[in-house]
């Protein structure tokens, strides 16, 4: 379980093919090829956990090219995704015990 998730950003895309039609003054030929797959960035913070470094490491080691189930628990269906970049930030204001993190998931088949 991802600790204290504060934001989820989802970017979805579709692959669109554009073909220009000579002499056409209005529009060309445009078709939807396929799905691009969502890219989901989950941000949060680790709070009140003395093993916060271990929690971050547990997250980081999952970026191993393995497709796993990702359930955002927002009512949407769980998807299959691979974990990509992971980022952790410590600031003076929050203290060394409360790092914020973000993890980017790539939806895959």
């Amino acid at each position: 379980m991802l600790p204290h998730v504060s934001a989820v950003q989802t970017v979805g895309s579709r692959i669109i093919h554009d073909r220009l039609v000579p002499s056409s003054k209005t529009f060309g030929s445009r078709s939807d090829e396929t799905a691009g797959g969502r890219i989901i960035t989950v941000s949060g913070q680790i709070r009140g956990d003395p093993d916060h470094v271990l929690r971050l490491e547990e997250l980081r080691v999952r970026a191993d090219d393995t497709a796993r189930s990702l359930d955002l628990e927002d009512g949407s269906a769980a998807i299959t995704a691979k974990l990509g970049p992971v980022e952790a930030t410590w600031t003076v204001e929050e203290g060394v015990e409360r790092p914020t993190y973000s993890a980017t998931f790539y939806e895959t088949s």
Partner: protein
Amino acid sequence: MQAALAEADQGTGNETTVEMTASVTLSEAGSGVEVEAMAASLTVTEAPVGLDVPTIAYDLGIITDSGACSNETVTTPGTLTVTEEGKGAEFAWRTKPSATMIDALLLPHVLSIRISDPATMSDKKVQGGSLPRRKMVAKAGRTVEIGGWSDSQTEIDAVDALRDGLHHTFYPQTGDSFSVLVTGFEPNASADEYDRRTYRLSLAEAN
């Protein structure tokens, strides 16, 4: 008089209670000066694996002298040695530095640390509306962005000297550490901040 009782255990598992009893009675009722000497040895050695809770209870020092001579000197030297060489679990506790460091250099007034672990993903689109096949190509290693400030030119110069192309060890305050190359150092000078110079330090994990 000497008495020695030995109890040896070389097997695995937990031992409960090993009882040894020895009684030595020395009676001397006559007059004169006696120098009674009693030596007792009680050694517990347990080498194999297992959880052992050695407890040695001893009662030494019941000496009765009813002779006519005074000025008895009673000495009860005792040595209690417990040796345990069995295998066990050792915990290596992280020693967390109190400040962010690169090698032995304390980075001055660190305000933020951002550690990123980027991963390069490749997409293979599948026609027909299916989701793409994605594969992680590689990970280049962690990158670190550190922000802070200093009011000492000496500190600025010391940090700048880390940009020497050599591998250094980065110690964030988390107890973690890894080898890095210093890829960038940008000290700023602003009239608005008087003598406080902010800086930005970039590191890249390298083996």
